[in-house]
């Protein structure tokens, strides 16, 4: 193993890798990447103590752009991969990044169960209400009447998936919404999310300028949430009833104990277990 490098404080630039993102110019994900590096700098975490896990999609490309350990896994399965990693290596800071299709369509089941299980992870979903990587189909968060998805020419005709509602209903311990139009604000939210014990979920509105160019206007629609975060699920639920999906900020901070199995604790000698087999 390498000797630990000198412990001089790192700037956000130190958390960016040398790789050039494949994203389209203007894609919201650039800002999210910068928010993540800023948050990591603010938290002063050592790059080797961080892991970013993702599935597949434009947003899911992020791990390789961050100077940290990363895993760019298969589509929709980032959360269980991160869960395994965090349980086996509880001392690491584990972030999970991806898109709305990856997280809520093929990955929907893991999202439900990750919220319930409440492992100490931070899940950052760059929501652009579209499948960017596969060139513009409707995602679960797409509006029912969006007619430009080529698999749903008449519009999906389905009520959009409500990420914050589902996160709350399934028990996420920290729930927030950020916007890629304000990377510094997003960075502050991420710092909080990462610090908060248990499963933290942050939806980041991150326009797909290529397949949803109208989302460029989001930056005019977002605003700070009118009220402070709550630690009462009921109150949070009520707030979501009037949420138009442009309120930015922390919605909910819970107090549930993170799920952690006692990994690596000292134990029996294997011989004791083998004894059970003796006739």
């Amino acid at each position: 193993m390498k000797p630990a490098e000198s412990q001089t404080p790192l700037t956000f630039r130190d958390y960016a890798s040398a790789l050039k993102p494949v994203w389209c110019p203007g894609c919201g994900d650039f800002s999210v990447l910068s928010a993540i590096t800023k948050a990591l700098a603010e938290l002063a975490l050592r790059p080797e103590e961080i892991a970013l896990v993702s599935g597949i999609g434009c947003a899911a490309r992020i791990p390789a752009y961050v100077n940290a350990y990363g895993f760019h896994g298969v589509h929709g399965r980032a959360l269980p991969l991160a869960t395994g990693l965090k349980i086996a290596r509880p001392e690491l800071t584990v972030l999970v990044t991806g898109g709305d299709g990856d997280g809520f369509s093929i990955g929907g089941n893991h999202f439900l169960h990750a919220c319930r299980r409440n492992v100490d992870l931070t899940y950052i979903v760059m929501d652009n209400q579209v499948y960017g990587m596969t060139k513009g189909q409707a995602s679960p968060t797409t509006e029912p009447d969006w007619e430009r998805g080529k698999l749903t020419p008449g519009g999906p005709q389905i009520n959009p998936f409500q990420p914050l509602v589902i996160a709350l209903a399934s028990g996420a311990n920290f729930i927030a919404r950020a916007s890629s139009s304000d990377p510094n604000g997003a960075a502050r939210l991420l710092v909080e999310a990462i610090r908060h014990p248990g499963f933290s979920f942050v939806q980041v509105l991150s326009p797909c300028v290529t397949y949803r160019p109208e989302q460029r206007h989001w930056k005019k629609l977002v605003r700070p949430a009118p009220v402070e975060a709550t630690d009462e699920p009921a109150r949070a639920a009520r707030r979501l009833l009037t949420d138009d999906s442009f309120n930015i900020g922390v919605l909910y901070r819970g107090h549930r104990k993170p799920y952690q199995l006692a990994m690596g604790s000292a134990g029996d000698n294997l011989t004791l277990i083998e004894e059970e087999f003796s006739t």
Partner: protein
Amino acid sequence: MTASFSASDSISIALAGSGGAGVMTAGSILLDAAGQSGWYGCMTRSSGPQIRGGEAAALLRLSRRPTESHDDRFDVLLAIDWHNVARFAAELMLDGDSVVVGDPQGGTMPDAIVALRARHYDVELKKIAKQMRGGRPNMLALGMLSALLRIPLTVVVAVLEAAIGAKGEQVLAASVAGVQRGAELAGAVELGRPVPVVERGETRRWRLTGNEATGLGALRGGVRFVAAYPITPATDCLEWLAARLPRVGGVLLQAEDEMASINQVIGASFGGCPALTATSGPGLALMMESIGLAVAAEVPVVVVDVMRGGPSTGIPTKSEQSDLNLAVYGLHGDAPHVVVAPTSIADCMRTTQWAVHLAEALQTAVIVLSDQALGQTRAVIDKPADVAFVAKRALPGDAEPGAGAYRRYALTESGISPMALPGMAGLQYTADGLEHNESGTPSSQAQDHAAQLDKRARKVAHFNFGESWADVEGDGDMAIITWGSSTGPTREALARLAAEGKPTRLVALRLLSPPQPALLEEALAGVRRVLVVEQSHGRQLYRYLRAHYALPGEVRSLSRPGPLPVRPGEIRQQLTQWSQP
């Protein structure tokens, strides 16, 4: 192992009855008591479709010599009642020399059994039990069988105490009384064949199922992280592990589905912890996409498939060797990985331990193909020898260039590249299922793809798997190639042939993939006839061998689907006929 083995060395007993008759309890206690009295042996459970209760049969074979598989026939059928016994007809290989004991008040004996004209005893188990306080017919049956096998009553009582003592004095006393009464009833029964004489020797015996042995192999190999979703017949392996992992500093995570469990395992292993999941056919199918990720991103994982009858949901409770194709070929793209299979119940331990070793050494996915017959048969065996396989992953050395220069997928000669673990400073990299260059950066260029495909193929193809690749035994110019739970009956057939002066070779493949043509060629040098023995409808092993090996001489296939095992007698007969001029 292939030493002579004659019919008089063992005795086979089927104990059957309908729901609630307590057949399994009696069978287990009999096996334990036999084990403590010096017998080797095994017991398989067969039950009907009911979730719980329902008709059941405990199929026992007790033997003076180590054995883990069943004989061609049963010497004794004891039916606590006759209701639904017909459903087991195909599994109960009875003949005119068998002895049939049953309760004439418990329904009518199936025609197929009447037709055998076997020696037959009526014992009014239910009526006699009723006359005793807390009496149960299954304890009478246990007593009868113990007596017929000359198992000392004291041993049976001791096992009973351990097994049902917790149910209270009264229950225990009633059971003991039942066993005693049963032993008396046995006096009337004439087996018509000698009972093997056994002695409790010096060697220590173990009593375990293949699923437990698999669990122990995992722990021995160093697995400390297991994630899984329950599925028959793998669940009891997982349950065994769930109770024991915490005792050795490990954890078991119950996942929401199989995609979750395999990815949890990949994540834990990426973090440096040897990790395993166990499942059965349907679950393995669901995991294949992500097993491909482990192959492409070069993350060690072990996946145990305890095979059951297929296709689809198939026959969840019964055995078949029909997931070979899926395990070997079921990944999209060219994805070299390793497939191994235990050749006996005891070998489940060794093979699983080896699998962990291979996964860690090769940084790839290793699939262990166990099956229901191995996994859920309980056997009394000699304590298995310790094997020295440990989990050892190549980590970066001190000389590894850090600060962005680390090449996770370096093109080494062996194909194995040192793997950094989170926490190691300066070696941060991103593991990727996209094709990549040496550094792990995604690449769609032909050169990178070819280089990484070569590397991943090379590390598996050039690895020295050593002696464990197969159990090679015996001599002669005929050979049998087999695998998994078909090895037991094959071994026994070859022992019989050897005793008849017809030596025959055995190659029981432990390493199914990658193929080892040079080793097999050596093992089969001089062989003129090869019989491939397996339990599948599509002759999967036979086809697989054709694809990858040049088998010498004439090749035949003896294959049948589950749930009926291939029997030693059939194998012997097939070879005998074939060698007749």
